[in-house]
């Protein structure tokens, strides 16, 4: 059965969310909006503010300022109600090492008010049956991660907040979890908010991507739009890149020009098109050796908006 928050309300909505630790601003004015039934990828470098944001969404860290609404309810006013409908995995996989996989999950069932049989169901879902009687302390890192994901699912949550959900999984495990999350969204209407620093993972899975950098949400991108827009970067190899840059700025009004090599200029301006660029350079008497339009993928997009060098 598909479930969703109150009609019209986003699954997660933050307004002006800020968190400072002393003089350090970890999260700055983040306005998030995650739609019901989507997979939202929260992308950022290490230390960008992803985990702090997730901790605030789960009430583990108190915001310095701003508001959080989850599944239509204010987190500060109805923390317990919100958390009873949310499954979560925070940062590292953790379980009680001296309890078996089954005991860990049954304990979670009891604490979440789910039936005991739910433990067996999620063990099947995450292929943990064969480890049911093994203590969690003796599991591999990948299976610990599966156990943490199983723990998040025992009460059939409407919203999953997952911090690096595929950490420690092998390639087959990553594909399997990807399939599981997609099925939960498509078949049960679950909303998934997942953070990751694995660009390929987010690109494969997320419907929308929020890019966080230095604590600020710098961009929200629709993954399909990113794929379909054919957003281009154009690389030109010329004999005089400084003059070429000046010509392109003055004649075509382009911005987003950067050096990508000794004689190579990269143009990431949204309005850049190959033909006018070639014409302008030739008319200015610049020797054009090569012009290569490149479609921008999420990795390049991420590197560009976070100020890193594009690959």
């Amino acid at each position, binding site marked *: 059965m598909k479930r969703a928050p109150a009609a019209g309300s986003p699954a997660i909505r933050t307004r002006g969310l800020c968190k400072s630790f002393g003089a350090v601003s970890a999260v700055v004015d983040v306005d998030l909006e995650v739609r019901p039934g989507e997979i939202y990828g929260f992308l950022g470098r290490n230390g960008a503010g992803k985990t702090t944001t997730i901790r605030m969404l*789960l009430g583990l860290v108190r915001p310095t300022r701003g508001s959080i609404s989850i599944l239509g309810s204010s987190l500060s006013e109805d923390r317990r109600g*919100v958390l009873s409908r949310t499954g*979560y995995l925070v940062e590292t996989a953790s379980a009680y090492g001296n309890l078996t996989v089954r005991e860990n999950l049954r*304990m979670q069932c009891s*604490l*979440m008010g789910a039936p005991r049989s739910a433990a067996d169901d999620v063990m099947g879902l995450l292929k943990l049956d064969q480890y049911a009687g093994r203590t969690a302390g003796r599991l591999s890192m990948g299976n610990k991660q599966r156990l943490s994901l199983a723990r998040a699912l025992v009460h059939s949550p409407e919203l999953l907040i997952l911090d690096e959900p595929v950490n420690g999984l092998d390639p087959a495990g990553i594909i399997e979890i990807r399939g599981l999350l997609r099925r939960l969204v498509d078949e049960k209407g679950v909303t998934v908010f997942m953070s990751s620093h694995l660009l390929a993972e987010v690109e494969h899975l997320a419907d929308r991507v929020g890019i966080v950098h230095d604590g600020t949400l710098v961009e929200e991108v629709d993954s399909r739009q990113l794929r379909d827009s054919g957003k281009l970067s154009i690389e030109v190899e010329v004999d005089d890149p400084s003059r070429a840059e000046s010509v392109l700025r003055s004649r075509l009004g382009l911005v987003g020009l950067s050096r990508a090599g000794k004689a190579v200029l990269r143009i990431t301006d949204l309005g850049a098109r190959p033909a006018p660029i070639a014409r302008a350079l030739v008319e200015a008497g610049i020797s054009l050796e090569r012009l290569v339009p490149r479609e921008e993928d999420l990795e390049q997009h991420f590197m560009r908006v976070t100020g890193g060098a594009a690959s």
Partner: protein
Amino acid sequence: MMFFRVLKAESLKLKRSKVTWVTFVAYAAMVAIAGLFLWMMKNPAAAASIGLLGQKARLAFGGQPLDWPGFFVFLEEMGGLGGLIMCSIIVTYVFGREYAEGTAKNILALPAPRSLFVLSKIAVSAAWFALLTLWLVSVALLTGAVVGLTGLTAAIVLAALGKLFTLAGMSLGCSVLVAWVAVQTRGYFAPLGFSIGTLVVASVLGHTGWGPWVPWSILGLYSGAAGSGTDVGPGSALVILGTFLAGSALIAWHEERADNVQ
């Protein structure tokens, strides 16, 4: 009832933990050593023949008569500050393990009042320590019988139980502050350091006029380990109770309000 679910979860964690069983072995060893001292004093020639010095044992036994009441008084003295150390280890483990094993974040994001977790952890610590105290008396009865003590009466056993359980309650009252240090510092080392510090405070202030007003010294005075002659009255009981309430409130406040950035 959420509280009982949380309590059940906490009990299962302890049941499966090796630390729990190690504490029972440690208490049994403590009583066995006391029993050995008793045997050495009762049988000095036999002890000397196997290289054990009865004189040393007598020194350790502190001049108690070699009978059941004397044996229990010795255990009470050992169980005073020894019990405080054991109780500190217990609460450090119960509270600190959630941070050391990275599971605190899982607990704190559950849809339940966090004070329930604090309360249930204090409850299982109390139950664990109460069982240890019963275990101590049981092993003591067995050890005393093996050593050949005679004249045991129900009144002697009840008096020992009463005093040892009072000491256990006082130890728990003092140790809640250790638990607070464990959640504040998110681990094991600082609370254990703190509890060693409290023992130093207890032994220094126990010999001053402030002893009856310092929680950790009160234990030493009441158990007799810090010598006799100092009254431990209702005022001291209030100090212990106040320490317990303040410690519990500090933990609850921390879990409810502090950022969990583990």
